[in-house]
């Protein structure tokens, strides 16, 4: 069990649509595997991205998503805060969750939720459920008019 500090806004306005996956962005492979497994065990569908570039590829593909959950410190030209900023400007309906051992002092200025590492499965699942609802309620937040052109 972790001891993560968490911050979250309530569920954004849902749209009708198919069940949508969570895009999980984490460069530490075992943290990514474990976090994805916790979320899948809870009933969510998860897409794993190893860095911001992969996340942007997935966002740009038009894949409907329920939430973007991203680490902050990652290799490559974009860190998690830059990815969050890109996602919020390009896909304004998509909730963004920061997962990091080094959250900024004002995490809610950058995202809709934040959880400090280390965290455990219950903390992660509870926070995501608070943000987007239970797995059977997850809907596409990045479709239709909200999607970046």
């Amino acid at each position, binding site marked *: 069990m972790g001891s993560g500090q968490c911050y979250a806004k309530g569920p954004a306005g849902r749209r009708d649509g198919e069940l949508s996956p969570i895009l999980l962005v984490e460069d530490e*492979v075992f943290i990514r*595997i474990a976090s994805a497994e916790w979320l899948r065990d809870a009933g969510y569908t998860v897409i*794993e*991205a*190893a860095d911001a570039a992969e*996340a942007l590829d*997935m966002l740009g593909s038009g894949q409907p998503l329920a939430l973007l959950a991203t680490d902050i410190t990652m290799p490559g030209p974009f860190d998690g805060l830059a990815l969050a900023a890109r996602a919020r400007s390009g896909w304004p309906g998509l909730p963004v969750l920061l997962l990091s051992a080094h959250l900024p002092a004002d995490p809610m200025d950058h995202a809709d939720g934040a959880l400090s590492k280390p965290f455990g499965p219950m903390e992660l699942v509870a926070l995501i459920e608070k943000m987007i609802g239970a797995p059977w309620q997850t809907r596409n937040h990045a479709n239709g008019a909200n999607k970046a052109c």
Partner: protein
Amino acid sequence: MADTEPRERSQQSLLVADSDVLVRHAIADYLRRCGYDVIEAASFEEAVAVLEAPHVTPSAVLSDVELAGSGNGFALRARAAREWPGVEVFLAGNIAAAARTAGQLCERGPHLARPYDPQLVLERVRRLLADRAQR
């Protein structure tokens, strides 16, 4: 019996190593829906880290030939043959690139073509695991 297959397969863990997130997710998602426990690696280093981990034991690896990182799919297969001989590595990739790399590394060409044919992947994985069970 068809309805017992998912339960049998669910005990099998597969590692999908591919540096293209769109391809990797598609094939991993397909294999999960078929009942496999799928681990994803985005690079050579991630694939090796997974194979080295004592708590993760994939039965087989499906790897892109042109895997990102310090080694490609052929290097991953060579390392697996050396260090984890029980783990079969299926290679998939562009045929021309595979042939070029194969010539350099004196390895066999890829088993599967990318973009992946999900049915073919499933068939190959099933056959591999069935053969292993018989042995």
